[in-house]
């Protein structure tokens, strides 16, 4: 079969593809959006691991995050489904075609608000796939309302103060019997890529909650920290008409067990804490407690928080044939004429 031909011999990976073959369309997200960092990580990892594009599918919900599958792995089939419903579509696709590597991309609104039920039930079925939440605590695409993962007490420019407790996606995943639960920060390329590779190798649902700042709507009006735009001019746009361009935030390596404070575009800070070397990700209780503690300290634990290889995955529960169901043809799918006669005999 023909492939993209190139005059200059570019660098290729173990299946003979170039990095370019894993890219997508140019992003239409805001400049500096964390989601674009995640796309870049996926491209790198897919290239490094030599994923065959035709064996990879991308499924997403609706939101800025859910748009991002358009910006990586352009050769792979992709399905931008409905808001909050990526899990069911992914489940159906996996049931139909067990050989595909499914990359699910969702947002915090998509997964923790409208999609919470489907998310939890996907985990319960342990559908083999990589489930990435590009978590920014807001609804980006609808312009800056709080999502269900927004911190209690957080202030947004248009939405005011959030008085509700956040839904912790990792905690929900662990309690929901997910066997691979990790958290990272979009601007930490090394950690994100490491986790992605581990997740892709996991047999079952692998959830990575990636903190992925929304540069446009995570502005703290009441913040005491410097306001990014025109503070000294006291200009406040009435509608969101002007969006400054930012650089993506990237952080340096930091050690296990240490904290790293990261300043976001609006001047506010978040604190990441990399899991201790000694953390035992196979310990359910420890994983839950560590998240709970971090939440009360307003820290974000990063790393592989929980792993469990004992959960049965969708395919073993279904007991399906080894080849993809969707590849079966009439001879396998339509029982014989005689079998119908037999069955009808019992109905007379």
């Amino acid at each position: 079969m023909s492939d993209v031909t190139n005059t200059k011999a570019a660098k290729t990976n173990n299946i003979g593809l170039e990095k370019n073959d894993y890219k997508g369309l140019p992003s239409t997200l805001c400049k500096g959006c964390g989601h674009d960092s995640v796309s870049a990580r996926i491209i790198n990892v897919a290239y490094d691991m030599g994923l065959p594009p035709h064996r990879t599918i991308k499924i997403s919900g609706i939101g800025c995050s859910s748009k991002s599958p358009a910006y990586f792995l352009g050769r792979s089939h992709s399905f931008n489904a409905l808001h909050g419903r990526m899990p069911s579509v992914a489940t159906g696709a996996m049931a139909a075609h067990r050989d595909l590597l499914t990359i699910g991309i969702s947002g915090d609104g998509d997964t923790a608000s409208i999609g919470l039920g489907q998310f939890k039930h996907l985990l319960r079925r342990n559908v083999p796939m990589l489930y990435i939440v590009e978590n920014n605590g807001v609804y980006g695409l609808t312009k800056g309302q709080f999502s269900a993962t927004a911190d209690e007490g957080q202030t947004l420019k248009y939405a005011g103060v959030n008085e509700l407790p956040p839904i912790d996606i990792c905690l929900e995943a662990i309690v929901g019997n997910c066997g691979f639960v990790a958290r990272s920060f979009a601007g930490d390329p090394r950690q994100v890529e490491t986790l992605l590779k581990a997740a892709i190798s996991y047999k079952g649902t692998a959830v990575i909650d990636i903190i992925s700042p929304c540069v446009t709507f995570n502005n703290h009006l009441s913040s005491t920290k410097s306001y990014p735009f025109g503070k000294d001019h006291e200009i406040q746009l009435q509608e969101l008409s002007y969006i400054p361009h930012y650089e993506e935030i990237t952080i340096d390596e930091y050690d296990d067990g240490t904290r790293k404070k990261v300043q976001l575009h609006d001047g506010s800070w978040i604190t990441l804490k990399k899991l201790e070397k000694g953390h035992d990700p196979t310990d359910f209780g420890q994983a839950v407690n560590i998240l709970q503690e971090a939440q009360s300290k307003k820290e974000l634990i990063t790393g592989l928080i929980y792993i469990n290889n004992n959960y049965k995955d969708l395919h073993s529960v279904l007991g399906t044939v080894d080849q993809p169901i969707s590849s079966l043809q009439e001879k396998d799918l339509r029982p014989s004429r005689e079998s119908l006669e037999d069955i009808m005999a019992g109905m007379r």
Partner: protein
Amino acid sequence: MSETSHASEPQTAANGARQINDFCINVATANGTGSQTSNIALLRAMFRMGIPVAGKNLFPSNIQGLPTWYNIRLSKAGHIAHRDVAEILVAMNPKTVAEDLTKVPSGGVIFYDTALPVKEDREDVVYYAMPVKDMVKSMSVAPNLREYIANMVYVGVVAELLGIEMEMLRSALDTHFSGKKKAVDLNMQMIEMAAEHTRNNLPKRDPYWIERIEGGNKDLLLVEGNAAGALGSVYGGVNVVAWYPITPATSLADGLNEYLPQLRRTSEGKSTYAVIQAEDELAAIGMCVGAGWAGARSMTSTSGPGISLMAEFAGLAYQAEIPTVVWDIQRVGPSTGLPTRTSQGDLGFTYQLGHGDSRHIILLPANPAECFEFGYKALDLAEQFQTPVFVLSDLDLGMNLWMSKPFVYPETPMNRGKVLTAEQLEALNGNWGRYADVDGDGIPYRTLPGTNHPAAGYFTRGTGHNDKAAYSERPEDWEGNLQRLRRKFNTARKHVPKPELTQQDGGSFGLISFGTNHNAIIEAMEMLKADGHVCDYLRIRALPATAEVGEFIEKYDRVYVIENNFDGQMHGILLQDNPSHATRLASLSRQNGMPLSAIWLHEQIKAAHERFTKALA
């Protein structure tokens, strides 16, 4: 069709003549008492005696203790429509007996449990008292089996007095209990004891008789619509099923769960299918859409509330052009409505399910053989047209046992639609547009995930897109796509199942209907004919309506559109299809949870048509 038998009029015994194989039996019991086993045994035994029968279970939305009626119609003329009047009552339920008694027509027969407060005070009926408790007691059976076995008493009494063959009852029970001998024996013992008691104590005083018809019901099946639909889907190669329990659709999924393991496991015992009980209907159709997109033949079954919840996904599947099949076993709505009563009330809503301008292909089965047929055809049409296909059955068809023609093994190979392989893509040099109308029929080509060609991948979305599946907000692209989708819909007009025409000599007006109204209409046409009203009848089997429908309407000054819903939904659809013939179309619809009856239809059509002809004159 017989012209002399007007089976819908109650038969009176006044003239003393024998009434053979042409009356109704109504068994009044409570839910959860096991009476279903008795009733189905009676029905099946009569069926095996060659008599045309129809059984209808009127059960409550409850598990135990509420009133349930089982209505068995015998009709030597073969009429199997619902009939409101039953000549014979088997009264077993103290809670409803008072009202049940009042419904027995003059000349009727009442079998009753002596534990019930029945005073034998009507002169115009025959009473048979059944000392159920005593009879049960006299059989040595574990106490916890007594109530269950109690229902076999009326089987024995009724069989003895009406003439149902014991051997046929045994064979019916044998089928029912899949040959489990102990169960069959226990029940037969009670039946025979009751029969014996009857022979000894209850002399026949009524004129109703059940007599074997040699060669009757030959080849016919006795089967539920849902089982037939499940089986048809299995032979249609369904391979991903996602569903959520809901009455009256659950038994379709049950059927799949029964037949798939039987018929579709490899020699190593692996499944060529996946059945997933979803967490709700939103997820069920989401899974079907995901599976259809990935190349599976997917389906789900649901009822009204599920259809409401599936609206957003139906729109996505329509817009992104993804095949899947949705069975709606209709029950009474709006809302939770009457979960255990029948309706055709989802038609209009489903036809345009989803916000914005969408239109769906709908198949409308009228009998189990057609449920089987549409089981595989729906899957073919879905893949052929890359769109969700809805099959609108109903509770009456889905959950009752019907006499049915045998199922016809699919005559044509599966239609997998326009799917490009890697080889074909290569031949095209990778130049293809997911939504391009290459063939002028509005149906584009698709590729499946897993296709090993660099140009195979595309981006599926519910948003606006151009021929190449790229996001587009351009007015031309949006409008062009809607127009192509309409072209596709009009192509479907030529490929969906054609209507079935019933023509009479000199038919002077028309009837249009669909689904389970069929039997009542056939019967009403006979009654109308007897009154001098000869009409023709077209049964629509699918939407969009094929050309035959418009042609039929054009032929008559007046066409009655008959439906089991309140709004006259098919009438509305036909108006939109045929505005220039709007004045010919009259709506005749009703919704009370019961199947339409021939008596009601006869009255209504007659009155309406007499008004119409008078107005013309």
